[in-house]
């Protein structure tokens, strides 16, 4: 038996049926990226173009590896959230659905690939 009334179950959820959760999650990932972006991008700028050995040594270091993995998880989440909003604004109908699902699967795949690659370097395989 439900102790909530039907009215109270749907209050605040709106037409999207998820309320403000998408908006909120996007802000939280944005705040995380305010911290992570300088920590990731500046070392990346330093290491891009360096030799194979130096790059592996840099990202073999736990701090660099952890920051890089945290950045990749957050940035692909934030990227998908942003792409979804842009797609919803400019594309409608079946193509909208196809693009959103494509964006979500691609972001997941690239995030997974990035995490795998950095772990492989960091764990020395």
């Amino acid at each position: 038996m439900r102790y909530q009334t039907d009215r109270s179950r749907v209050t605040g959820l709106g037409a999207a049926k998820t309320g403000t959760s998408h908006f909120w999650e996007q802000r939280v990932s944005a705040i995380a990226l305010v911290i992570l972006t300088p920590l990731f991008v500046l070392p990346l700028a330093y290491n891009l173009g360096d030799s194979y050995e130096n790059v592996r040594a840099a990202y073999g270091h736990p701090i660099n590896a952890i920051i890089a993995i945290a950045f990749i998880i957050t940035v692909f989440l934030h990227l998908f959230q942003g792409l979804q909003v842009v797609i919803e604004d400019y594309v409608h109908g079946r193509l909208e659905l196809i693009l959103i699902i494509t964006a979500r699967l691609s972001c997941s795949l690239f995030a997974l690939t990035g995490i795998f690659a950095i772990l492989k370097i960091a764990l020395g395989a």
Partner: protein
Amino acid sequence: MADVNRGNRPLSPHTTIYRWPLNAIMSILHRITGVGMSVSAMLIVWWFLAASTSQSYFATANGFLTSWFGDIILFLSMLAIWYHFTNGIRHLIWDTGSNFGKRRVYRSGITGLAIAVILSAITVYIA
């Protein structure tokens, strides 16, 4: 009434003859840089994958990213990320309900652009 013949007059919004305010340009640039950086993100993951795979694969990815074409992409990506970074902070401040109004929005826009330029200069110096 929507179906009345309005003649050949331009219809609102007059985006072709209207001078875009700074904040309108910055708003659409936020989206353009955000979507554009999908490519940057994928390239960086490719670079990490190459570095984790083998020396020869790394040479391929590194060779592309350090070529003139790769340099252009990375330079634009760097401008995009610092722009999106500072403009994103403006958005987070707006989300608290503060710093609205024409003058404040203009001022934070100029400030954001200036900080983005400084961060870009630092990044170029490091790279």
